[in-house]
């Protein structure tokens, strides 16, 4: 039987093949390492849930849930201790409402303007500028609210106290504008050009097209921008800690000082309560409350965004 003569040197050196096997092991190892890096995010979430829940359980063993939800006083550091989270929530709701009253109209107008009206050069300058505005540390905004905005408001409304939810809320609203504006603008720009062309062909003006064609088509994206804005407002800390005073106050009047869930946590962390005391555990219960609120808003926003992606 005649065979095809093999070349004297094997075309595939055996040593190389062995090396290749090692190479696969190395590949797997690297992939596993990278997976671990990606898994850090899951570990972070689990860590947050673990810390908040385990510390809150200690708290709720000492304070019944009904007191936590329905008591109208929040005085955990006094001898006559009351733990009514409602008091802190009222501060959070009031300041967030003021912030949203500022951020949603202005953010939406800016988004419509940049998406439908502005010439190319204006947009090229305005978008990075908005991004810069969003990058300013919140402590700086807090200082601004305390030192500039409150005195300005006091000129109009002399009875305003030096610490108040109004100034903090307004500045917080300005801080949120970039988020609302840029997310809403993205949603509007994702609306296909053909819809606008159809509208223009019917003789509609820019404003009519923007309000009656583009905005309805981008509703879910805009809604998700608003929801993320709310979530920002609820979680904002330093502006309120600096400018709103930190006295718990069950009020929905923005012209009063008040504490929020976030600024209360800062207040306790600044003091020197021993770890394990009931006063200390309150910040984890407050944190759990905050986490649940923002989680609801984030999931709602995520769901909205997903829905809006599917439309086109």
């Amino acid at each position, binding site marked *: 039987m005649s065979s095809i003569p093999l070349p004297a040197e094997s075309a595939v050196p055996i040593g190389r093949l062995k090396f290749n096997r090692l190479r696969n092991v190395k590949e797997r190892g690297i992939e596993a390492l990278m997976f671990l890096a990606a898994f850090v995010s899951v570990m972070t979430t689990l860590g947050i849930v673990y810390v908040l829940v385990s510390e809150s359980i200690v708290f709720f063993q000492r304070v019944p849930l009904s007191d936590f939800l329905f008591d109208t006083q929040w005085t955990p550091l006094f001898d006559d201790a009351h733990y009514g989270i409602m008091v802190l929530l009222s501060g959070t709701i009031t300041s967030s409402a003021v912030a949203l009253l500022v951020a949603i109209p202005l953010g939406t107008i800016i988004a419509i303007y940049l998406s439908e009206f502005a010439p190319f050069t204006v947009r090229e300058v305005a978008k990075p500028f908005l991004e810069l505005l969003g990058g300013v540390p919140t402590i700086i905004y807090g200082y601004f609210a305390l030192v500039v905005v409150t005195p300005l408001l006091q000129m109009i409304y002399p009875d305003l106290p030096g610490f108040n939810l109004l100034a903090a809320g307004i500045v917080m609203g300005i801080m949120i504008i970039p988020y609302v504006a840029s997310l809403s603008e993205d949603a509007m720009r994702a609306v296909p050009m053909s819809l606008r062309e159809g509208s223009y062909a019917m003789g509609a003006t820019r404003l009519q097209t923007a309000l009656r064609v583009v905005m309805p088509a981008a509703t879910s994206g805009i809604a998700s921008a608003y929801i993320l804005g709310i*979530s920002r407002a609820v979680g904002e800390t330093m502006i309120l800690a600096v400018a709103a005073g930190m006295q718990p106050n069950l009020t929905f009047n923005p012209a009063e000082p008040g504490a929020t869930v976030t600024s209360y946590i800062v207040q306790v962390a600044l003091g020197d309560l021993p770890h394990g005391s009931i006063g200390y555990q309150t910040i984890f219960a407050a944190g759990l409350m905050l986490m649940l609120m923002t989680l609801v*808003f984030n999931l709602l926003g*995520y769901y909205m965004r997903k829905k809006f992606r599917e439309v086109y």
Partner: protein
Amino acid sequence: MNQQELQALRELIASHKRWDWLFGLLGVFALMIGVLTFTALFANMAIDGIGRIDADFLTSFPSRRAANAGILSAWVGSLLVMLVTAFAAVPIGVAAGVYLEEYAPKNWLTDIIEINISNLAGVPSIIYGLLALGLFVYTFGLGQSILTAGLTLALLILPVVIVATREAIRAIPQIIREGSYACGATTWQTVRDHIVPYSSAGILTGIIIGMARAIGETAPIITIGALTFIAFLPPAPFAGEPPAGMFDWLFAPFTVMPIQMFNWTSRPEAAFAVNAAAAGFLLVLMTLAMNGLAIWLRYRLRKSIKW
């Protein structure tokens, strides 16, 4: 069409055009509110603070007398915390981004990781502070140290770095990968020699934005219980007796710029408000410079790279 109807129609068109014009004006006005606020914020801080910034301010420790107080321990603390944050967040963030784009199979685990990252991006920063307090400070026993603060901020900016990495990698066309695989390269070789180098500018942009955010974060660092009055410096990094002494600095107590500013803001005396303005001015300048650099980098990138 008679003259009257034509007249009515013209009026209607004119009024619609007027509304259009008015809205354009409103848009410019809304943008101006943002610009004005920013200018007022910057100018106010500059006017109040700039006279206070001199060599003494940068080289003095905080003091009970406002005129002698400085930010030496604050800026050194910020620098060291940022060092830890960068060392932790950059490798983990980039690796996670590369994994999700180049390695991850399409399954439920990947979905969970992705949902997690987008959810973490929306978690308030103070919650990270509580996480660090419960986990790093008490469970792991790292104390209220530079290491704890650095790791906390690293977790905080991780989503920013991951998202930026993924976007930069997604911009690389598929043919680059195919070319590399066709030459017999493994996934890791493709990632190391092509994917990461080509996306490095985009990744760098994300890292800078993340670090700019970390440098101004106050709430999580207050929550872990960082002290505000620190009149000494932590040991110099890597200068102590090796091997153990080299890492003494990681476990030192510290303060950072935004905490120092918060401390001065919360005092009633006017002289301390001037100090706060000065520290705030430097802080704004730093974050603006970093964000500006990132925006400029991205702009350059968009213009120069055409695949």
